[in-house]
């Protein structure tokens, strides 16, 4: 690990995490008001219909998450291959293209199973 990278990231993190102190200072600046209605979640002016922070939503988002996981891990395999391509030569390249063929087969399966169709 590069020590300066760790140090720099640490400094950024420390500075940004220290920012809540600044937020507390803003309490003493500017106007303030307090009422039950004011602290409600925004809902175009009517009373909120939505009490909880967590709720269910369309399962398609979850499926996209799974597809992403599959393809992104495959792409991560390809990064070390890409920078060493000149040493690996033609055979190494074709090996990875076979692997990419499997990736494309997976993509075709995704198309066929219609998970990307939003009707």
């Amino acid at each position, binding site marked *: 690990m590069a020590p300066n990278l760790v*140090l720099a990231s640490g400094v950024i993190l420390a500075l*940004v995490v220290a920012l809540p102190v600044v937020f507390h200072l803003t309490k003493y600046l500017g106007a303030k008001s307090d009422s039950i209605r004011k602290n409600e979640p925004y809902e175009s002016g009517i009373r909120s219909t939505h009490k909880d922070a967590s709720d269910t939503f369309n399962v398609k988002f979850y499926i996209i998450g799974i597809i992403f996981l599959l393809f992104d891990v495959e792409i991560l395999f390809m990064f070390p291959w890409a920078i060493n391509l000149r040493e690996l030569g033609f055979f190494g390249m074709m090996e990875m293209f076979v692997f990419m063929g499997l990736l494309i087969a997976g993509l075709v399966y995704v198309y066929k199973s219609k998970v990307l169709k939003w009707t």
Partner: protein
Amino acid sequence: MDTAFIIETIVKIVVILLIFSALAGIGTYFERKILAFMQRRLGPMYVGPFGLLQVAADGVKLFTKEDIIPTGVVAKIFKIAPVITAATAFMAAAAIPFLPTFTVFGYTVHPIVADINVGVLYVLGVMAIGLYGPLLGGLASANKFALISTARAASVFISYEVITGLSLLAPLMMVGSFSLIDFNNYQVDNGWLLFSQPLAFILFWIAAFAETGRTPFHLVANDHELIDGFGTEYSGMRWGLFFIGEYANMFFISFVMALLFCGGFGDGSVAGALALLGKVAFFFFVFLWVRAAWPDIRPDQLMWLCWKVLMPLAVINIVITGFVMMF
């Protein structure tokens, strides 16, 4: 680690932090002015000469606005989400060479905090972690607009992660290194990658719009549908952190595009350094130009574009590049 090294690193990162926080503010001024001129308006013009002090006025407003934690939110996660966006944006900057190495008063300055050999991976990886800001912020606020925005943000960001990775593979095959400095030096000898890899450049550029959540893909906080998306419940400086993170990301991705595809700072002369800044300014301007010229697309069109158009194109580009390199 000696003391001089630690001090140098800390000074560099603090300078980057201050410059790009300020640039985020000035960037909003330019955004409002450019959008206004393109729509035949005047934009900000009352505060200071040409409205230049509008940035300072907005800053004062952000700092003095009451910090509201609404009822029903998960307070801890709600508070930490904007911090993640801002922190990851600036952490990514640690591996970007902003200028070529130069000498001031006999002291050589390397305008890169950490010249690591996996620079490209580090920058893109840390930027990808920035997704947790919108994700946690939206899930923690008890607001349906924020929730929809979060679901969209997650699907857009992760889909275009795949495009970023695939489009970068072809240039990586040609250069054979992850270091942004090596990319720059390769282009000094062999010409810009923009000309040898035009398709990869266009794919990366489209993905950059999605990764920063800019207009044709601005579904995350699509104003007329979702109010301010995941930022609806935020006020004051907490919202400001989301904002600074977004604009800093725009500048950093412009730097990455200029370094990866458009020759970077060339041979490291003064002209090369100015050319790099010019390219970054151009890319930033295009972000604003597209916002003025283009309507937002629907979320399903976005997924269609990513998985059915851009991804096959990126794979074809890799195969062609491979065969051209071998024969």
